[in-house]
């Protein structure tokens, strides 16, 4: 997987969506932010659909709504593996290909999906979890009694690339989000080798309140300003 900042820490801003996703290779593992219609990097997803990378491994809460959000990538047969918490009743294209045996699915409890990504970003390779003990989720996982309670071992979850959506970025890559559009985005930013953010607005360095920055610039590699695109 050859993916890097290209322009370094000082110049992260790309002028077009197509340019910012141009070098995503076939076979890449990509995290996608977004939940409940909010905070999806829809422009980046559309760009990836145009770019055409195949055999993608997707990590995302859900799997699109019709052609919207991640739907287009499934429609285009660009995805072969999915880690998700709630593929969703509207994930038509995903479901068709899952049923046809063309996609492998790993279903993960939502909080554990978050926690596994956070662990990766935090340099923690694995942790014990109370979630899913005694359920299908525990299948194949080590179980262990700790202070008299049952837990299962969960692995950190990283990616080659994170596609995220924020509200505003400054030119260094500090990010703020809007309301519940924050969701998975700040976690994914920490858990990928390369984080690409689509934002409503790019502001000058110093315009974001240092007390209120949610994702510090260290976690952001590429920024593109893109007109809002929402599938409700």
């Amino acid at each position, binding site marked *: 997987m050859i993916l890097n900042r290209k322009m370094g820490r000082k110049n992260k801003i790309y002028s077009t969506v197509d340019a910012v996703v141009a070098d995503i290779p076939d076979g890449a593992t990509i995290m996608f932010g977004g*939940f*409940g*219609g*909010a*905070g999806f990097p829809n422009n980046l997803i559309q760009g990836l659909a145009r770019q055409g990378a195949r055999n993608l491994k997707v990590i995302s*809460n*859900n799997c699109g709504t019709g052609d919207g959000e991640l739907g287009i990538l499934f429609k285009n047969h660009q995805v072969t593996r999915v880690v*998700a*918490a*709630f*593929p*969703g*009743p509207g*994930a038509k294209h*995903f*479901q068709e290909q*899952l049923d046809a045996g063309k996609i492998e*699915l790993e*279903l*993960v*409890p*939502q*909080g*554990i999906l*978050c*926690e596994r*990504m*956070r662990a990766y970003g935090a340099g923690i390779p694995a942790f014990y*979890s*109370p*979630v*899913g*003990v*005694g*359920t*299908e*989720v525990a299948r194949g996982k080590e179980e262990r009694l700790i202070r008299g309670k049952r837990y299962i071992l969960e692995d950190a979850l990283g990616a080659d690339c994170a596609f995220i959506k924020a509200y505003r970025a400054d030119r260094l890559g500090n990010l703020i*989000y*809007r*309301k*519940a*559009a*924050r*969701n*998975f*985005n*700040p*976690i994914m930013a920490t858990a990928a080798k390369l984080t690409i953010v689509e934002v409503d607005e790019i502001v000058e360095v110093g315009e974001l309140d240092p007390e209120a920055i*949610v994702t510090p610039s260290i976690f952001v590699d590429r920024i593109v300003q893109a007109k809002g695109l*929402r599938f*409700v």
Partner: protein
Amino acid sequence: MSKLRLTREQIAQRAALELPDGAIVNLGWGIPNLIAAYVPPEITVYFHSENGILGMGPRAAAGEEDFDLVDAMKIPVTVIPGAAFFSQVDAHVMTRGGHLDICILGGLQVSEKGDLANWRVPGAKGAGGIGGAMDISVGAQRLIVAMEHNAKDGSPKIVNTCTYPLTAVQCVNTIITDLAVIDVTPEGLLLREIAPGIAPEEVQKYTEPKLRYAGKVPEMRLSKL
């Protein structure tokens, strides 16, 4: 099936009475999602949404939706003063870490020991989805399941052992249905209240495990709108 069963709205009304003043609460899909409307006016509860909101208010009025402000069911909502936004990982620090006072989820099956199955019907089409239910079930200080007492085919949903895929084991504290309020205790299921006009023996008939009760079982109270 008894004709005296409560409606889904009435189950929600009863469940709302379980909320202590000041509680931080997460409501799941299904009947639980109806509960917010029935919170008694004299108390204040704070709603948590696992996509990153504490202090969620009512649904947004038509025409005033902000699609960046949705609940875990994708519905545009509002926030009350004092609300906070945070990431989904922090939202689940709250669920799994035991910080929520009370969570009310829907259910497909609840076992005698308080095991919960609520995320997939075996044989149903589609991949299904776990969502946040497992994290919430494991971490809730108090977990209530609000559901119909029986499945559409009349089979009991309160069972000796769950046959559906589990959400979490030994997690349910109380079951509120269209027939009864039942507490899960170390000694088994305790019939705490019954729907008006129903006899304890009738509730037992619709329930697989043995219910404990002694003397007269009080009637289910309902919250007023």
